[in-house]
């Protein structure tokens, strides 16, 4: 699937040059290498075992069906960040998309996470997604700030829902961003109705 504005050149706060683009089949090995390098503690936040080739195969298949939209951030040939939008193509939550973002530890606080999140939100709106959700552990304070800046607000807290690497149970926060008003504006624009013109 092609999206407007990609590939996108990005200069991070420290001057690092990055290219952000939708995942293509040839990026898959670099994506696997990226996830294998993510510290084990951080990988606990992820829902899948992203170190296995089988995961990658399933992931790429879902990207091909459109169920997942994946943006990768590349520095040279290496993937240094990834943002995914998961959505149901059918059923009662087909209007909802879930966002997941991972950034290489050395590039955290560089603006890359924010850039990836902003781009993915834009892509999601373009796909007609009306509501976006993101799941975070209570301790992920910078991630919470990042998504708050993008209009996400805490919607639910699942108490003691996740266990960190030390076995400590932590709260899982679900934040959401309802962007349906954008499409309501479009709906009004195509209504072909004016109370003053007959």
């Amino acid at each position: 699937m092609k999206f407007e504005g990609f590939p996108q050149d990005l200069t991070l706060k420290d001057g690092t040059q990055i290219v952000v683009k939708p995942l293509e089949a040839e990026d898959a090995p670099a994506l696997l290498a990226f996830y294998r390098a993510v510290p084990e503690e951080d990988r606990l936040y992820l829902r899948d075992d992203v170190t296995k080739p089988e995961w990658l195969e399933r992931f790429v298949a879902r990207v091909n069906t459109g169920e997942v939209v994946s943006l990768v951030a590349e520095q040279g040939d290496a993937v240094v960040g990834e943002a995914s939008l998961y959505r149901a193509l059918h059923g009662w939550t087909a209007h909802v998309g879930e966002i997941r973002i991972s950034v290489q530890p050395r590039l955290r606080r560089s603006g890359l996470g924010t850039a990836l999140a902003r781009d993915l939100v834009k892509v999601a709106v373009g796909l007609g997604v009306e509501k976006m959700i993101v799941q975070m552990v209570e301790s992920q304070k910078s991630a919470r700030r990042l998504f708050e800046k993008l209009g996400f607000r805490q919607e639910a807290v699942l108490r003691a829902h996740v266990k960190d690497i030390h076995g400590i149970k932590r709260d899982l926060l679900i934040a959401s961003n309802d962007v349906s008003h954008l499409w309501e504006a479009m709906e009004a624009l195509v209504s072909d109705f004016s109370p003053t013109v007959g």
Partner: protein
Amino acid sequence: MDKTEIRVGGLGGQGVILCGMIIGKAASIFDGKHATLIQAFGPEARGSACSAQVSVADEAIGYPYVKNPDVLIVMSPDAYTQFAPQIKPGGVLLYENELIKVDDRLPAGVKAFGIPATRLAEELGRRLVLNIVMTGFFTGVTGLVSSEAVEKAVKTSVPRGTEDLNLRAFRKGYEYGREVLVKAS
């Protein structure tokens, strides 16, 4: 003076007026031509017949009303029934081919081109952008306004945040139009 007259017809809620407005805006603001727009609404907010009359010319337009269009864009069967007989002989009909069946009411020499615009819009993610698919189809088939101008007009006419999907809808219709034209030649 070379003037091209266009009528867009359909139902309230299909974005008929926006389609006409984008064509006029592209021609006048971004392609440097002159354009006029006349709009007609029914009394209901949804589902009533509505139409837009657009004139495009290289010089100022003195009379903006369109009686016999060179190009008719229709998105509903009622609009087709009402407006198809009025197309100028040798004119062009652009129609939503999963909603409208073309019959023998067309004047002589009218070239008819169909597009499943509603289905294409749904496949893109939003039925709402059907009118933008039709706008792209119009641009691809007629070449009356440049695709760059219409892209700019789309981008500056739709709500902020919805530009991406609307531009994809435009390109889908445009490419479909170009293909249909190649097949017909």
